[in-house]
C-alpha cells in the first residue's frame, strides 16, 4: 500500500508489523482448518478465525519472535473457542448439521465420500480428544507444543491421541486388518456411521 511511497523510510516498528501481518496471513488456512475441526462448522470457524486475528493483532507485542507463530495463534483460537464459541457450535450443529454434510470438498471426487464419513466420525469424538488428534496428526505441531497449547502434560496428550484413534477406528469400523481393503473401508464406514447418526 504505502510500500512504494518515495519519501518514507520504514521504521523498525513498521517493518515488524508487516512481518507479523505476513505471518498471520500465512497461518490463516491452518487457523481455518483447526477452527473447523474444533467447532464443526465452517461458518463458525471463520468467525473464530476473525476473532483470533483481531486478538493476535492487539496482542502482537506478547508474541516472542523466534517461537512458533502457529502454536501461539492456536492457543488464542482455542481459548476463544472454549470461552465464547463452544455453546454456539453445538447450536449450529443441531440446527444445520455439521460442516461434514454441507461443505464442498476441494479434493478429488473419489475421496469425497470417505472424507464426509471421516468428518462425521471426527465430530463424534470428545473435544479434548479431537483437538489433540488434529494438532498432532494434521497440523505439524509437536506433542510438546500441543501440551503447551492445552495446558496439560505430554503424557495426557499421548493418551488422548491414543483414545481418539481407538474411538475413530471403532466409529469407522476399521478395527481389524481385514476391514481395511481400499474399497471396503468406506463401505464399512458408511454403514456404521449411517446406523449411528442419531446416537451419542
Amino acid at each position: 500500500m504505502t510500500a512504494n511511497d518515495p519519501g518514507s523510510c520504514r521504521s523498525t516498528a513498521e517493518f515488524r508489523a508487516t512481518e507479523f501481518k505476513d505471518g498471520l496471513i500465512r497461518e490463516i488456512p491452518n487457523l481455518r482448518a483447526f477452527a473447523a475441526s474444533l467447532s464443526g462448522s465452517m461458518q463458525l470457524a471463520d468467525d473464530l478465525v476473525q476473532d483470533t486475528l483481531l486478538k493476535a493483532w492487539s496482542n502482537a507485542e506478547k508474541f516472542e519472535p523466534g517461537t512458533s507463530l502457529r502454536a501461539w495463534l492456536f492457543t488464542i483460537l482455542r481459548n476463544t473457542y472454549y470461552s465464547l464459541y463452544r455453546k454456539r457450535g453445538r447450536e449450529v450443529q443441531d440446527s444445520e448439521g455439521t460442516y461434514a454434510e454441507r461443505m464442498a470438498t476441494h479434493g478429488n471426487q473419489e475421496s469425497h465420500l470417505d472424507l464426509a464419513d471421516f468428518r462425521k466420525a471426527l465430530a463424534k469424538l470428545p473435544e479434548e480428544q479431537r483437538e489433540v488428534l488434529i494438532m498432532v496428526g494434521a497440523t505439524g505441531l509437536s506433542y510438546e507444543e500441543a501440551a503447551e497449547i492445552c495446558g496439560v502434560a505430554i503424557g495426557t496428550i499421548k493418551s488422548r491421541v491414543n483414545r481418539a484413534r481407538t474411538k475413530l477406528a471403532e466409529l469407522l469400523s476399521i478395527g481389524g486388518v481385514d476391514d481395511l481393503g481400499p474399497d471396503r473401508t468406506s463401505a464399512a464406514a458408511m454403514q456404521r456411521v449411517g446406523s449411528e447418526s442419531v446416537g451419542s
Partner: protein
Amino acid sequence: MSNLDTAMSEPGAGDNDDFEMVLDPKVQESIGRSLKAHYDDIVNAPVPDKFLVLLAQLEAIEQRAAGVSSDDRK
C-alpha cells in the same frame, strides 16, 4: 511420534484398558491419512477476502498512528 506408534502396535498390551488398546499399524496409518485429507482439504480451500481486508485495515490504522508520531518529530 515413532515411539508412541511402536508402543501402540505392540500386541497384547493392556487390552482391558481402553486408552492403551492396541491399534493395528495399518489402521493408524489409515486414520492418519484421513486426518490429513480432512485438514488439508480446508487448508487448500480459498481464503475469504475478508481476512486480508481486515488485516490491511488493521495495518493501515497502525501506519496512520505511526505517521502521526513521526510527523511530530519533524
